[in-house]
């Protein structure tokens, strides 16, 4: 197995374009998911009883394969199949569903005693949410974001099924030309992307929740 560096050199513009597409399509939907999931998750967390039913629905939506969402999404938002907006929206929906679970896990991890102490100190519901519950839930929520970003980096490649870009292209190209070079380039870029993204979110996590120690294997 030998890498063809000439091919890499000749195709640098295409490789960088696909990489940029991949980064945007993996990251933006995850961020959208985070922003939408915090209020939705809080709502489901608050209504407890009925929340379980909603949560079951959220879990089922999360289990729909991305391929299926990719094909149906253009019908809903009236865009072409391979449109980046349609792919982004598909990933954003799935990311939101997963983030809702992480938000609820985070909110449930706040000890009842802490909440009751805040209540005894006269904290209202809103003040308690913003100064007690959300700060304490930030660790698990950002940990969840890390895993959603990692999953998205893998999932974006599924878009090759509807004929769209992303680094998944390099794998189909390698298959068509029976060449390992594009496959290895794609795989290495994906691993680098995943490591860098994970590191950045860890740094943010350290910045906003300096009291939490994150060890490998935990989130």
């Amino acid at each position, binding site marked *: 197995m030998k890498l063809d560096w000439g091919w890499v050199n000749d195709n640098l513009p295409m490789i960088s374009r696909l990489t940029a597409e991949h980064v945007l399509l993996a990251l933006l939907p995850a961020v959208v998911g985070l922003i939408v999931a915090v209020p939705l998750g809080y709502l489901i967390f608050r209504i407890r009883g009925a929340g379980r039913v909603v949560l079951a629905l959220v879990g089922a939506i999360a289990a729909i394969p991305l391929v*299926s969402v990719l*094909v149906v999404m253009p019908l809903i938002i009236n865009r072409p199949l391979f449109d980046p907006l349609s792919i982004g929206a598909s990933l954003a929906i799935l990311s939101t569903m997963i983030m809702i679970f992480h938000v609820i896990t985070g909110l*449930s991890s706040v000890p009842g005693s802490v909440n009751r102490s805040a209540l005894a100190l006269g904290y209202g519901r809103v003040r308690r949410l913003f100064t007690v519950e959300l700060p304490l839930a930030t660790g698990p929520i950002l940990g969840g974001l890390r895993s959603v970003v990692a999953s998205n*980096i893998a999932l974006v490649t599924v878009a090759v099924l509807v004929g769209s870009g992303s680094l998944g292209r390099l794998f189909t190209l390698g*298959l068509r030309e029976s060449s390992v070079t594009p496959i290895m380039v794609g795989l290495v870029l994906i691993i680098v992307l*995943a490591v860098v993204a994970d590191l950045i979110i860890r740094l943010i996590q350290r910045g906003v929740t300096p009291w939490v120690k994150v060890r490998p294997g935990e989130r």
Partner: protein
Amino acid sequence: MIFDYLRDPAHWQGDDGISSLLATHLGYTMGALLVAAVLGIPLGLLIGRTRAGWRIAQVLNDVARPIPALVLLVIAVLLFAASILPVIAALALIALPGVVAATARGVSGVNKPAVTAARALGMSGFAMLRSIVAPLAMPSMVFGLRRAAVQIAAAAALAAVAGAGGLGRLIVAGNAARSYSEMFAGAILIAALALLLYAVLGLLGYSARRRSRQSGSGEMRGIGSLHVG
């Protein structure tokens, strides 16, 4: 109309018909799920006994997360052939880290006094595994298999990109022929299969949870990792 392709009986027959693609897809999914379970569950039971082993399983699962199913399928097909065994091996490999990690998490969560009590009563290693550890770890194990099933059913759609058939074929061919109703047929069938497996294994998980008398808290903690297909 978008249901036209699905409704036309002619499209269900023949080598490239929906029935045959569905059978291939099911074969890939069930085969890979079986391999992942047969390899992953014993491995998880083994390494979940120590804290370090459990950690390693979690880290491996995290490391494997961004690796696309597509690359494993492409490599398997290039190295071997676009036939059933390489595809099943690649699909099983995709789900394996999750199955091992979920099983190990289940084992690591087993109530320690229960194990100590069983040992004090003179239970042998295998009897303990069979009647204490396995039932208590069962909900987490089934959860891992549920995640694996959904993941594999979705990833099997990518086999078509590598020319190995399955329901993804309808999407690839439909896209090439600009036939949206063919793509829609593929999308609906893949989703139906994944959701069917999700529901069946969900029921299995419910009964396992009732039997182990550990109420539903594990469900919520683990489900975040369902983001896989």
